[in-house]
C-alpha cells in the first residue's frame, strides 16, 4: 500500500510531507531523552524486519490482486509510538530510494498513511485499551489484531483520499474505496495475525522489550488529550486535502458524481470546498499548477492550455506534438549515446 | 599513569535468561602485559571480555581501567583506550567497503582524511589485506573477514587490545603474521584462543577459566604444561609444548626458549622448538 509519486499532485504530496514532518519532529522530541544503547539498534532491527515484511507480497484470495503488510502497529507496540513512527519514516525512505516504492514526493503521504494512523491512532486508542490492565497473550492477540485492522483501514482510506485529491486517476471515489478497503481488510487480518504472533513471541522470549516500551511511554496513561490532538491533526490534514480535491478538480468530481450516482461523501466535500476556497489560495505554493481551473489562469502557459484543451485538440497540434515528441526522445537517446561513446573513446585514449 | 592498567574486582554476570556466566572473577593486568584467557567452550571467556569492554554490565563487581570504573558514564572515555576484536567478525563489519570499515574508528576521532588514510593503509598492510580494500566486507571469505575485523581495530591504535580468538579462521601464514604482529606491539593485550600455541607465543601470563570461575593463573608455560590442570579444564597441551617421543629436553630450557620465541619474527621459533621426553604420561 504505497502511494506513488505519479499518482500524487505536488500540493497534496507537499502538504502530507509537511504533516509528516510535524509529527516526526514531535516524535523526535519525545524520543530523544529516552533513547539508550539498547533502543537504537532495536529500532533499526525492527525497522529492517518491517521493511523485509513489506517486500513480501501475498496473494489475496478471490481478488486476483496481492498486497503486503504495513507494519506500523508492530513498530508501535515494540518501540512505542514515537520511535515507531520514526522507524516507519526510515523504512519508507529506504523503500522510496531503493525500490522506487512510493517515491520522494509521495514520501510524506506514505509516512502519514502507514505511520500516523497506526502509531498515533490505533495504538493509543485500541491497543492500549486492550492492554490497559496488563499484558496477557489473549489481550495481546485481540488488541493487536483489531488495532492493526483499524490502523490499516484508516491508512487505506487516507490513501484513497490523497489519490483522488491529486486528480491523476479517473477512479471514482466510491469505487476506489470499495476496492481498497476490503483488500486492506484482508491484508489487515493477515497482518494482524502475524503481528500478534510476533508480539506474543517477543513478549514470551524477551519480555524486557515490551515492558520497556510500555513503561517508558506515558501515552497509555495520559492519552485522551494527546490522542485528540493527534486526531484533530488528522482531521485538519484530511479535511484540508478534501478541500483541495474539491477545488482542484471539479471535472473529475462532477464526473465521478455522475458515474456513481451522487454519493453523499462527494457532496460533502464540495461544500467543504466552498468553505475553504479562500484558504486554499493562500496555501498554494505552486500557483501555476493544480488550481488552474480557477477561471483566471486560462491564458497562462502553453502546457497548461494543452492540458485543458486536449479534448478539443486539433489535428495540426497533435501532429506537431507527435513529431516533436518522437524527436525529443530520439534526441535524448542520442545524447546518451554520444556521451557514452565519447567516454569510451576517452578510456581508450588513456589506456 | 598507574601501575595497574586494568583491574577486575569480584565480577559476577548473569545472562537475561538467568544463566550465570561469570562468577566472582578478580584479576589485574599491568600496563604492557599480555595475558591469555583460556578455557573450554562455554567457560565464559567471551562474556568476560565483553564485560571488560562495557558491552555487558556486571551484576556485581567492577572493572577499572586506569583506576576509572567502567560505567555508562565513563564508557565513551574508556573505550577510546580499548579496542576489541569480536569472536564473530560478522558482528564487526558493517560498512560497504573494507576501507570504510577500517576507517570508521579513525573518522570518529575526527582525524583529517589524510591521517585516516594513513592509518587505514597501515592497518591493512599489517594484516596483509591491502588487496581487499575496495571489496565489500560481506563478500569476503571467513578468514578475510577476520583479517578485516582485526584491521578495523588496529586502525584505532588502542592502548589495550582485546582479542577473542583472533587466529581462528586465519590461514597458517596469516596466523603467523598476526602472532608476530602482536609480539611487536607494546600494548596491553588480552587474548583468548583455543589455539594454545598462539597463547604460548603471544602471552606471558595465562588465566584459566572453567564454568565462569578462575581456576588457575600464572606463567603461560607453567600453566600450559600442567597436564592435569589442562585436562580438568577441557584443554590439551599445545603441540609446541608437547614432548616428542624420541628426544627430550628440560623444562627450564624450554621455558626460556618460549620466552625467547615470543619476541621472534616469523618462523624462527618453529625451528628452535625443543623436544622433551615424557613430562606426561598420556
Amino acid at each position, binding site marked *: 500500500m504505497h502511494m506513488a509519486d505519479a499518482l500524487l499532485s505536488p500540493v497534496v504530496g507537499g502538504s502530507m510531507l509537511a504533516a509528516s514532518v510535524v509529527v516526526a519532529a514531535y516524535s523526535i522530541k519525545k524520543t530523544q531523552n529516552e533513547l539508550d544503547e539498547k533502543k537504537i539498534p532495536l529500532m533499526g532491527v525492527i525497522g529492517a524486519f518491517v521493511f523485509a515484511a513489506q517486500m513480501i507480497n501475498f496473494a489475496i484470495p478471490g481478488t486476483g490482486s496481492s498486497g503486503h503488510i504495513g507494519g506500523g502497529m508492530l513498530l508501535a507496540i515494540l518501540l512505542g509510538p514515537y520511535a515507531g513512527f520514526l522507524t516507519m519514516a526510515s523504512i519508507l525512505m529506504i523503500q522510496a530510494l531503493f525500490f522506487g516504492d512510493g517515491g*520522494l*514526493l509521495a514520501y510524506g503521504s506514505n509516512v502519514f498513511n502507514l505511520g500516523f494512523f497506526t502509531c498515533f491512532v490505533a495504538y493509543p486508542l485500541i491497543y492500549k485499551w486492550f492492554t490497559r490492565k496488563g499484558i496477557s497473550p489473549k489481550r495481546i492477540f485481540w488488541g493487536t489484531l483489531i488495532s492493526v485492522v483499524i490502523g490499516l483501514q484508516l491508512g487505506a482510506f487516507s490513501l484513497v483520499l490523497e489519490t483522488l485529491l491529486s486528480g491523476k486517476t479517473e477512479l471514482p471515489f466510491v469505487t476506489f474505496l470499495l476496492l481498497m478497503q476490503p483488500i486492506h481488510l484482508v491484508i489487515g487480518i493477515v497482518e494482524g495475525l502475524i503481528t500478534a504472533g510476533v508480539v506474543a513471541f517477543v513478549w514470551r522470549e524477551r519480555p524486557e522489550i515490551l515492558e520497556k516500551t510500555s513503561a517508558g511511554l506515558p501515552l497509555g496513561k495520559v492519552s485522551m488529550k494527546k490522542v485528540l490532538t493527534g486526531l484533530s491533526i488528522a482531521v485538519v490534514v484530511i479535511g484540508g486535502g478534501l478541500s483541495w480535491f474539491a477545488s482542484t478538480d471539479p471535472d473529475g468530481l462532477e464526473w465521478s458524481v455522475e458515474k456513481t450516482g451522487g454519493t453523499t461523501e462527494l457532496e460533502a466535500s464540495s461544500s467543504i470546498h466552498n468553505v475553504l476556497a479562500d484558504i486554499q489560495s493562500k496555501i498554494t505554493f505552486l500557483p501555476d499548477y493544480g488550481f488552474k481551473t480557477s477561471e483566471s489562469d486560462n491564458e497562462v502557459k502553453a502546457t497548461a492550455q494543452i492540458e485543458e484543451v486536449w479534448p478539443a485538440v486539433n489535428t495540426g497540434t497533435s501532429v506537431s506534438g507527435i513529431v516533436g515528441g518522437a524527436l525529443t526522445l530520439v534526441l535524448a537517446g542520442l545524447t546518451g549515446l554520444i556521451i557514452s561513446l565519447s567516454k569510451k573513446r576517452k578510456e581508450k585514449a588513456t589506456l | 599513569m598507574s601501575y595497574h592498567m586494568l583491574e577486575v574486582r569480584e565480577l559476577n554476570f548473569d545472562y537475561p535468561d538467568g544463566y550465570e556466566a561469570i562468577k566472582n572473577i578478580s584479576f589485574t593486568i599491568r600496563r604492557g602485559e599480555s595475558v591469555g584467557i583460556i578455557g573450554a567452550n562455554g567457560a565464559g571467556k567471551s562474556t568476560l571480555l565483553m564485560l571488560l569492554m562495557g558491552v555487558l554490565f556486571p551484576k556485581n563487581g567492577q572493572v577499572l581501567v586506569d583506576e576509572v570504573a567502567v560505567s555508562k558514564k565513563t564508557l565513551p572515555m574508556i573505550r577510546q583506550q580499548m579496542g576489541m576484536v569480536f569472536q564473530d567478525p560478522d558482528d564487526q563489519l558493517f560498512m560497504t567497503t573494507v576501507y570504510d570499515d577500517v576507517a570508521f574508528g579513525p573518522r570518529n576521532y575526527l582525524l583529517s582524511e589524510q591521517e585516516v588514510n594513513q592509518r587505514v593503509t597501515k592497518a591493512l598492510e599489517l594484516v596483509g589485506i591491502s588487496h581487499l580494500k575496495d571489496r565489500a566486507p560481506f563478500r569476503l571469505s571467513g578468514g578475510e573477514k577476520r583479517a578485516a575485523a582485526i584491521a578495523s581495530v588496529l586502525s584505532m591504535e588502542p592502548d589495550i587490545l582485546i582479542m577473542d580468538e583472533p587466529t581462528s579462521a586465519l590461514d597458517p601464514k596469516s596466523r603467523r603474521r598476526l602472532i608476530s604482529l602482536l609480539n611487536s606491539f607494546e600494548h596491553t593485550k588480552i587474548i583468548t584462543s583455543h589455539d594454545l600455541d598462539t597463547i604460548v607465543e603471544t602471552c606471558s601470563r595465562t588465566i584459566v577459566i572453567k564454568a565462569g570461575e578462575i581456576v588457575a593463573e600464572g606463567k603461560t608455560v607453567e600453566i600450559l604444561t600442567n597436564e592435569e590442570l589442562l585436562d580438568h579444564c577441557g584443554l590439551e597441551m599445545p603441540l609446541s609444548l608437547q614432548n616428542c617421543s624420541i628426544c627430550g629436553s628440560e623444562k627450564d630450557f624450554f621455558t626460556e626458549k618460549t620466552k625467547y620465541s615470543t619476541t621472534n619474527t616469523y618462523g624462527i621459533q618453529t625451528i628452535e622448538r625443543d623436544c622433551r621426553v615424557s613430562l606426561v604420561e598420556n
Partner: protein
Amino acid sequence: MSNIKSSLYNLRVLDDLARKETSIHLVHPLTKLLTTVVFLTVVLSFGRYEIVGLLPFFFYPIVIITVAEIPLGPILKRVLLAMPFIIGIGIFNPVFDQQTMSAFGLIFSKGWVTFLSILIKSCVCVGASLLLIATTGMDSLAAALRMLKVPKIFVLQLLLTYRYIYVLIEEISHMMLAYSLRAPRQRGIHPRVWGSFVGQLILRTFDRAQRIYDSMALRNFNGEYHTGKIDKNCWKDMVYLFGWCLFFIIARTNNLPMLIGSFITKVVN
C-alpha cells in the same frame, strides 16, 4: 530462498554503483538531492492529459545514466518492479474514462492518455530516485540530510535500518538455506515451523543488531556518521544544480517537443 538472496543482491547493486567515481558521483550529495527533488516536483506538476510536454524530462535520467556509467538493467528492472501498483491504479483510467477524442483520423481514449501520462511520470520519477541513490550512496545521502539539519537521531535511525536490512536478509537466507539442506524434500518452509522460524529470526537479528551496534560504539561511534569523503560545495555543484533547474523550468514552461514539432512541420510544409 533464491528470491531473498537475489533481492539482497539487488539491494547491494545500488551500493556498488554508488562507489564509482564519475563526475556525477563527485557532485556534492546535497546538490544531487536538491536537483532530484526539483525534478520530481516539476514532473509531477504536469497535468494528467500531458504526455508530449513530459518527454524532455527523459533527458535527465538518460544523461545521468550515461555520464555516471550506470548500467541500464538494474535501474530498469526496479522501475518495472515499482509499476504494478501504478498500473493497478492507472488501468482504471481507460476503464472509467471512455470519452474519446480524435486526432488525424485516429480515435484515442482519454483514459489511455491519462494512463500513459501516469506511466511516464512514474518511470522518470522512480528512475530519478534510484539514480540519486545509485550515484550517491546511503552514507553520503545521510550526510546530506544532516546538512539539511535533519535531526541526528532520524538520520542515524535511517542508516541503521538500512544496515540492518542486510543483516536481516542475510539471516533469513542463512536460515532458509540451513532449513532446506536438512529438509531436502520440502519445498519452502513447513507451516508447522513458521512460528519458531520467524521468532528465531527476530531474536537472532536482535542479538546480531545489538552486537553490531556495540561494535560501532566500541569504535567510538557517538551517533554522528562521518563518511569522510564529502568536500565542500563548490562552484561546480552550483552549476550542476542551476543548470538542471534551468532546463527543468524551460521544459516546464515551454512545450519543447511541440515547438520542435511545429518547427519541423512548418519547414516540411
